[in-house]
């Protein structure tokens, strides 16, 4: 394999590993703020118990995100010097603003958020939680701005092969940015919703009946049920936006070779790029046309339009985009069914809620074991959908690095292939080990919470001044 493909795999591996953790922290920060504010309002210890459990997972995810993010900023230079040399005048300020406005904010206040509860007044601890959540989201905003600009560049002119900014408003609010940003934020919300629901279901199955588990299980499932239809809607309009700006990507997502009307939605196919056709097609007639144009006889672009006269292929590799898209949508549909079924069951048997009948819309007791097991199995489904979605959009941009401006091949560094292979294999080994350790620790923390670590006195609300039980040092 040559340096280009190895560097691409390496960057892909790094950024895939990285995105797993911001996907958790972006939304988990807001959930923690919610817990913190509710504790401040009610003084009920179940909110603080939930905060203290989930803030540990936040801290762990945050650290994973920071260290893998540092790797990204160096790899621009070590592997992709051509990127900054060509579009540095645009990418540079966006990255700089990310570090200056967001990264420092999160990093400075996370110390207070994690370890400051007993050192600072309650309002300051809440404020620190807010600033970390806000910083994380702002960080995502700047990164998405740059990423979206690479898909739908505007507001610049090329002088001697180097991009120069002409209109920062147009650069920041480029056509695909609002859709991509919303899609990513909701994706983070869903990832966290299923993680919270899955971990809480796991604790429930192990016999943990503490009030905070009951609450987080309901919050997780309800959050998922609310967000998933929103995500499907945003995904749809994002797709229409892509159809307008990057038709070759949509053609690859649909596996459609010839521009035509009445295009079926393919449920299964094996795209064959040599023969330029699909094998073993199974599809629903007219549905792709209907989804993309809202008319059964609407025209859907085909991949063959993106082959130059001399045979140069200017569309993305078809199979990875086609399949990533199906994995994302499939996971989304599974999320929809599970969360709605779970909410329905908890609502139907809401009278089972222990102790209090009135005032509770949902009862965890309504969930059969099967649904609880399914929630555990889906705990990390957000990661799968997010990665599949990013693969769809990023592989879908190929062979361009910046759509219409420069190709990926133009940016790669002249590092010997064996060296890249060596570093790539090391990264892969470390990342595999760390993901394994991360999931292991999440499971361990959940188990530990079930047995030891008795939180507040169960079933009795506490005043805010109640003594907070101490955790073990270094926990």
């Amino acid at each position, binding site marked *: 394999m040559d340096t280009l493909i190895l560097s691409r795999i390496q960057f892909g591996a790094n950024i895939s590993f990285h995105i797993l953790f911001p996907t958790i922290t972006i939304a988990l920060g807001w959930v923690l703020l919610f817990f913190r504010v509710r504790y401040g309002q009610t003084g009920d210890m179940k909110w603080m118990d939930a905060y*203290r459990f989930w803030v*540990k997972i936040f801290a*762990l995810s*945050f*650290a*994973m995100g920071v*260290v893998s993010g*540092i*790797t990204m*900023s*160096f790899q*621009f*230079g*070590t*592997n992709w*010097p*051509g990127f*900054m*040399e060509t579009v*540095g005048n645009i990418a*540079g*300020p966006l*990255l*700089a603003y990310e*570090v*200056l*406005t967001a*990264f*420092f904010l999160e*990093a*400075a*206040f996370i*110390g*207070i958020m*994690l*370890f*400051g*509860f*007993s*050192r*600072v007044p309650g309002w300051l601890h809440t404020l620190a939680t807010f600033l970390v959540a806000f910083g994380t989201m702002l960080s995502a905003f700047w990164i998405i701005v740059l990423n979206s600009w690479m898909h739908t560049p505007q507001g610049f002119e090329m002088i001697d092969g180097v991009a*120069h*900014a002409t209109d920062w408003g147009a650069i920041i609010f480029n056509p695909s940015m609002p859709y991509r940003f919303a899609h990513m934020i909701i994706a983070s919300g869903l990832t966290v919703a299923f993680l919270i629901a899955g971990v809480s279901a796991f604790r429930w199955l192990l016999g943990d009946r503490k009030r905070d588990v009951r609450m987080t299980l309901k919050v997780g499932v309800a959050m998922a049920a609310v967000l998933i239809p929103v995500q499907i809607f945003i995904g749809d309009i994002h797709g229409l936006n892509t159809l307008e700006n990057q038709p070759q990507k949509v053609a690859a997502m649909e596996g459609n070779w010839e521009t035509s009307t009445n295009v079926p939605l393919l449920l299964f196919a094996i795209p064959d790029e040599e023969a330029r056709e699909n094998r073993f097609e199974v599809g629903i007639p007219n549905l792709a046309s209907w989804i993309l144009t809202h008319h059964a006889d609407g025209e859907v672009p085909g991949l063959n339009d993106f082959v130059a006269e001399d045979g140069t292929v200017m569309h993305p590799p078809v199979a990875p985009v086609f399949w990533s898209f199906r994995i994302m949508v499939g996971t989304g549909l599974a999320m929809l069914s599970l969360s709605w079924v779970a909410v329905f069951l908890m609502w139907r048997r809401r009278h089972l809620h222990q102790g209090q009948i009135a005032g509770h819309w949902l009862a965890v007791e309504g969930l059969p074991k099967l649904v609880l097991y399914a929630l555990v199995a889906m705990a990390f489904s957000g990661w799968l959908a997010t990665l599949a979605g990013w693969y769809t959009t990023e592989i879908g941009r190929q062979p361009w690095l910046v759509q219409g401006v420069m190709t990926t091949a133009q940016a790669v*560094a*002249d*590092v010997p292939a064996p*060296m890249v292979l060596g*570093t790539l294999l090391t990264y892969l080994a*470390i990342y595999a080990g*760390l993901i394994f*350790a991360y999931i*292991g*620790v999440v499971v361990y*923390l959940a188990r530990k919470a079930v047995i030891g670590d008795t939180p507040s006195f169960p079933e009795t609300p506490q005043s805010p001044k109640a003594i*907070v*039980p101490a*955790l073990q*040092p*270094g*926990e």
Partner: protein
Amino acid sequence: MIDLFGDPAIWLPFAFAALMGLSILIYVVLDGFDLGVGILFPMASRVEQDRMIGSIGPFWDANETWLVLAVGLLLVAFPTAHGMILSTLYLPVFIMLIGLILRGVAFEFRAKARSEHKRLWNALFFGGSLATALAQGFMLGLYIMGLDQTPETLAFATLTAVFLAVGYSFIGACWLIFKTEGALQRKAVRWGRESLWGVILGMGAVSLASPFVSTRIFDKWFSWPEALWLSPLPLVSGGLVVALWVLLRRMPFPGDRKAWVPFTLATTLFTLAFGGLAYSFYPYVVPERLTIYEAASAPESLLIILVGACFVVPVIIAYSIFAYAIFRGKATDLRYD
């Protein structure tokens, strides 16, 4: 603004070089002490180790952010230099990144994983800190040698790698003197005394080597009257080393007096050494090959970052000081409540 400062193609690159220099300096001092604490880690008992983590836990995330800012500024302000330097330093950068990853996550894992695994995460915390320091020292050495890779320059870089790691241990020990008490503080005083030699040898080696690698640097330091203006730099550094030596032989003082002094002196010493290096290499960003003026991005892009930086950097410094102030005083074990 442009009337005031003349040609933006001149002052903008300078402003960015200054900003980048400031970030690197803050990084070296701040992450220097927490990397140093990591390097000293195996020499402490298990209880002391938790206390050492407590002394850096609330800060390390923000400390590392200065590295991201520094490399970010290099990336955005001097993109050509960023590519040249980082693709030449491919392997040491890789080792540093692996080190940073391992130590950063070990921080969290050692406190949260099951206790049988704590030993593994402690080892990775130490190993990651050491690898990071060595890789940074190696890069510094190669940079001073003009990024050439010959057996001699590699040997020199190996030396600077060791010296920087010892130097970080030194400032780490000074931080521990400031933030801890009792037996651990006494140990830290000893560690500080024992690692001071690394600082002396490292600064000496760099001071001697850089003028001999480049006649340009030699002329900058040893021509009249510049030599006169520059003489306070080595003299004050020498004075600081002597003061540190005397202090570290006598500390700790009763009532914890002057516990903050070694760290302050060490920071001053690092600042002076850094200033000397910056003076030597200006105006080059890639030694003897590329000046900051040749490597700079388009002025309009730099201006938009600078305007933001003028507002934001003071705020960052303010809330960083605030965060340090909240966790002032002797370190305690970290708790989430």
